[in-house]
């Protein structure tokens, strides 16, 4: 679009102080879709530059985690794995978890890392954490290939529930974006976020049924408190992933709904907070 020859009225911009809650401009985001693509592309390119193993890390990370988890939770703690071979039981959960945890970490720091761009050029700031989250999909896809291999090896073939997989992937990304928006906007004002992120993801990992079944927790806490465990949207994501790929049952659809509602609440509040902090990013970052 060479606008030079076509000074369309739509190019008119009015700059004035914003009052009240900032709206969410999807149209604006769409206009900048190429920038989303380029920043995602940059994040992917940069991630493994000057690393010895490059993209192999996308596979190594979950594989090593899987071995450690199997040893500790399977061999030492002796937790059950819903009758599924433990390696694939854990690996299937680590995929969405890593997608989520890496996205939260990258997005949370993203505004500060891209400070230079924010103070010099205008674009919807949302693009920065968003592209960090999108760039994680490639790692996910690479690691997913290994999962396919493992499924063949163990002779596990998914049933029709496999079609729900994209939905759970979306749920994990919605959660990651919600949390990422909160953290990145907070990080602009409070650099404490940098220290909170590793702690937060570690803690979050433990309360998410990655190395164990969600059932183990539900069976041990009073039924009236089930909602508390399900408040963590990643519970729904992990249960859903296992159900879609390995055919394990979902504990209850009620708790799944709680996860979905929490994820959407995180995203909506994150968007509102982010949009309203956005106007001061360039002045304070």
């Amino acid at each position, binding site marked *: 679009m060479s606008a030079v020859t076509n000074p369309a009225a739509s190019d008119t911009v009015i*700059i004035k102080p914003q009052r009240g809650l900032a709206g969410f401009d999807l149209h604006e985001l769409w206009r900048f879709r190429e920038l989303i693509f380029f920043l995602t592309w940059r994040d992917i390119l940069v991630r493994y530059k000057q690393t010895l193993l490059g993209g192999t890390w996308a596979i190594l990370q979950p594989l090593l985690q899987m071995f450690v988890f199997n040893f500790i939770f399977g061999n030492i703690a002796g937790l059950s794995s819903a009758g599924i071979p433990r390696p694939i039981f854990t690996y299937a959960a680590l995929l969405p978890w890593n997608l989520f945890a890496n996205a939260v970490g990258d997005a949370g720091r993203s505004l500060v890392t891209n400070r230079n761009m924010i103070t010099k050029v205008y674009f919807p700031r949302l693009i920065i954490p968003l592209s960090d989250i999108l760039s994680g999909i490639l790692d996910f896809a690479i690691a997913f290939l290994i999962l396919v291999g493992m499924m063949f090896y163990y002779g596990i073939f998914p049933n029709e529930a496999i079609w729900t997989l994209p939905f759970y992937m979306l749920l994990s990304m919605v959660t990651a974006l919600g949390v990422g928006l909160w953290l990145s906007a907070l990080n602009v004002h409070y650099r404490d976020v940098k220290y909170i992120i590793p702690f937060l993801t570690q803690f979050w990992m433990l309360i998410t049924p990655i190395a164990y079944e969600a059932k183990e927790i539900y069976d041990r806490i009073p039924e009236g408190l089930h909602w508390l465990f399900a408040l963590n949207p990643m519970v729904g994501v992990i249960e859903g992933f296992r159900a879609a790929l390995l055919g394990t049952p979902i504990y209850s659809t009620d708790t799944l709904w709680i996860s979905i509602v929490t994820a959407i609440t995180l995203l909506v509040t994150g968007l509102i907070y982010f949009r309203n902090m956005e106007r001061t990013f360039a002045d304070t970052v």
Partner: protein
Amino acid sequence: MSNYAIEVRGLGKQYRLGGKSSNYRTLRDTIVDTVTFPVRLLKGELRNRSELIWALRDVSFEVERGKVLGVIGRNGAGKSTLLKILSRVTEPSAGYAEIRGRVGSLLEVGTGFHPELTGRENIFLNGAVLGMKRREIAGKFDEIVEFSGVAKFIDTAVKHYSSGMYLRLAFSVAAHLEPEILVVDEVLAVGDAEFQRKCLGKMSDVAEAGRTVLFVSHNMSAILRLTEESIVLDRGQMVYRAPTRQAVDFYMSSGLSQSGERVWSAEEISAEAAPFKPIAMRVRDPQGKVADTLQSRQPVEFEIEYELSTPVQGLRVGVYLQTGRGEVIFTSFDTDEPELYNKYATRAPGHYVSRAVLPANFLNEGQYVLGINASAFRVRRFFQDERALAFNVDSMGAPGTQWPEPRQGPVRPQLDWRIEVLESAEKVRA
């Protein structure tokens, strides 16, 4: 449709000057503030916590489509704030601006460049950040590479580039941006002279192509060459608007360019400068008169007047002398001499003047800028203003002026030339 590409009405931007040095807060600060709130409330300290200052206030102007408007003003006059608002990086606190057309803003070249990526990758990335479409970048790719002159290294990570190559590549991308309205900050202050000329050339192409340009620069000759009309900003307010030649004259003669003397008002000194408080900087001729035009063949005296509210250890107060284009000629501090260094190891509170004399036959004709720096080496920088005071040097009567030609270079020393006759031609003939 209105014929104005840019219309600015009563635009203002207020910044909060915190008592704290950092512009971001930690959670601890917030917690401490919350806890100590009642105490501070009782002590009446609340209003001192942060001061509000207007970086830009009630600025109104318009730019017709296809015109080039210059923006002149010293550091802190609000030029950058104005450009940041117009390029939507930051929001105004008051007023509004209407911009009709696609805006390309160059507050810096190479925004978004990533050191790990190759030149090729960075062209695409930077182009996208500046608002170019992928197809547009691909179409201009060869042209961009050619203009930059780094074709050989286009697939090398830019972290291996020299700073010159990096800048050339970055500028090439920016120069191929084709917005209807171009907002340009002092991007030309970088790079070598030849590159600057190339950039200025490209910039006038932009202006001739009928685009609307808002151009900020310290470089008066660039402003004169590229713009027809200029506005002068001072302390956030627009004080003058006229054809560029007049505006530059106004700026240079009204004391806004601080010729001869620069006096710092209280609001220009940040709280971080304490205990150092700059009062004034002056340039004097040999008769002791404060002057904005000095003779090359006479000595020039400059002085910095300041106060110290508490004893300061290892303080050095000094100047940077720069050309009008911002190239540093030298840096010198009042305690450079070991004798003074030892004597003033700790400077007691009081009112001081540090003076130095620049020898005669030192500077060439032209405009020069003095910067000030007050610091304790590796401990703290109290105050710094890189462009505190400008003055002119006239070369009348200086060595070599029997040839009425401009001489290159910032210095014009009187050298001890000798001519020896090794063999006289007459002797040879004989």
